[in-house]
């Protein structure tokens, strides 16, 4: 069963020096539980594609259907709801809220989804154990290492049991050993049934994916 179908998607950014085509007629499908990696040089449009699939941005042309729903037909609150409950995001720079502890960062999307306090605490404990941060639950991000922060970010992304995990250069700011830890974690997440779309420069991370795609100049290479 496919959860994402992107058809002939283009994204053009108007710039002062002239329009820039970040994506040119890209088509992509992701099946449930699939692990897909997209590699390519900087500026080839990987992150743009990720943003479009994650309903963070809208294509200039083409269509993207997520679990049977055309993203273009959704209102902003509906897209937000989709991102909250069906999609999880992991960023290169982690983007944890600095004033919340690791546990509170993981609780936040659950609270937004309307989970009760008890349910949130239970799920958060489960996720902290899952990513190996049980003893760091009450630490602020500034007190965590880079790898620990990324694991907390992954736990946050999984908080509402999404169908698809989107990761934008998740190991971009980590060393090799830590990157491998993150890659192992992605394997476990995928093994649990969550589809993953990761964009990365890291060949060893890309090698973990069941399908690898290359991008260049806004196009997916065959």
């Amino acid at each position, binding site marked *: 069963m496919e959860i994402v179908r992107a058809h002939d998607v283009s994204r053009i950014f108007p710039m002062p020096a002239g329009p820039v085509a970040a994506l040119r007629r890209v088509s992509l499908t992701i099946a449930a539980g699939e692990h897909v990696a997209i590699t390519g040089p900087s500026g080839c449009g990987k992150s743009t594609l990720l943003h479009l699939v994650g309903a963070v*941005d809208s294509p200039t042309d083409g269509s993207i259907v997520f679990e049977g729903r055309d993203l273009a037909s959704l209102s902003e609150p509906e897209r937000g709801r989709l*991102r909250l409950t069906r999609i999880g*995001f992991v960023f290169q720079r982690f983007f944890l809220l600095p*004033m919340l502890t690791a546990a509170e960062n993981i609780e936040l999307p*659950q609270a*937004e989804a309307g989970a009760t306090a008890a349910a949130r605490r239970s799920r958060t404990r489960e996720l902290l154990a899952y990513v190996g941060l049980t003893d760091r639950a009450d630490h602020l991000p500034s007190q965590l290492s880079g790898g620990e922060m990324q694991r907390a970010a992954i736990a*946050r*992304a999984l908080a509402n049991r999404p169908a698809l995990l989107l990761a934008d250069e998740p190991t971009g700011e980590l060393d090799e050993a830590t990157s491998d830890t993150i890659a192992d974690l992605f394997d476990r997440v995928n093994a649990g049934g969550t589809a993953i779309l990761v964009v990365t420069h890291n060949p060893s991370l890309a090698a973990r994916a069941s399908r690898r795609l290359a991008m260049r100049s806004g196009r997916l290479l065959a």
Partner: protein
Amino acid sequence: MSALHLAWRTVRRYRAQTILAIAGVAVIGALLFDMLLLSRGLLLSFADLLERAGYDVRIVGGGGMALRMPIPDSAAIAGLVRRLPEAERVALVRILPARLAARDGKPSASVALIGVSGAAAGVWTIVRGVDLDRAAGEACPMIVGRSLAARLGVGPGDQVRINAEQAGVTSALPAMTCRIVGLGQFAFGGAGDESVATTFDALHRASGEDRAGDADLILAASRPDAGSAALVSAIQRARPGLAVYSNDEVVEQFNRNGFAYFRQISLVLSSLTMVFAFLLVATLLTVSVNQRLGEIAALRAIGIGRRRIAAMLLWESSLLVGVGGLLALPLGELLALGLDRILRQMPALPEQLHFFVFEPRALVIHAAVLVVTAVAAAAYPMWITARMPIAATLRREVVG
């Protein structure tokens, strides 16, 4: 994980800027609170002084409050007012310039010699000694202002010599000896309190007139069940053409003429401080939001709704303005003491008159203004985060 909780954690994290912002709001809020106290402070204080004098109706000569001129036939008018069922008590007041000397050879002081007939309780408060009505047997009993007495080195029991002067007339009346029976705080006495009071008869003898002159002022107190308005109407019916005013009317006249400057300046400064507070909190919040755009874009990306983020910003603004506004109250009271001390240096101002007087209304307006400021200051940052392009912001944060 409510919006308030998120806001609280945010202000706690950025401690230095939070403390400084709250300090700024407290200081500006104190100024706003003081301007609200000033807007009616002088009026309330003046009304209080009039009430404390114990009379709620006054008859003046000269056709108005501003000019002190004798009231023709004042003794008869006073008698007529006394007989009115609405009146409880009546007093005649006459004021002449005079010179008071404590002892031979000592320099004399220029004073206002107040002659009062009937019960004059309230025009002054006895602080030492006895009042005029308890000095039976004295030909010229005198009440001397407390600070004047201290300056002249006199007290109850001492004899003083008084030379009354008639306005506009060069005279050389012989001095009259009077005995100080009490020291008083005159309701409308200035800081130097150069007022002395004696009986109407004694003033008449000191003035050297062949018949008792007309009073400058007739004070009347209405019966509690009648009220000042009823007494004013009764007097006007009995003697049309008299300039009769209740205390409320006196206060209203001074409000229109004498207090306009302070009303205006309090309005101008209240408005300015409100605008100032709004601009400062709005700028601070906007800069703070710009500092956290990446965080906020990421929150939007993971599905945290605009409403929660907007509520968080509104709570941040409310916390800054609310805590600052609360601190502004004691700070404002302290500041008001200092500003009141400055303004009371105005010449010829009654010592007991104050410019900054607390009333609950000021507190309510202060709170309302701060609520509006908090909401308005959060409006633009809320708008920024609602309209923020998530993808472009994330990209900028990664690259930048």
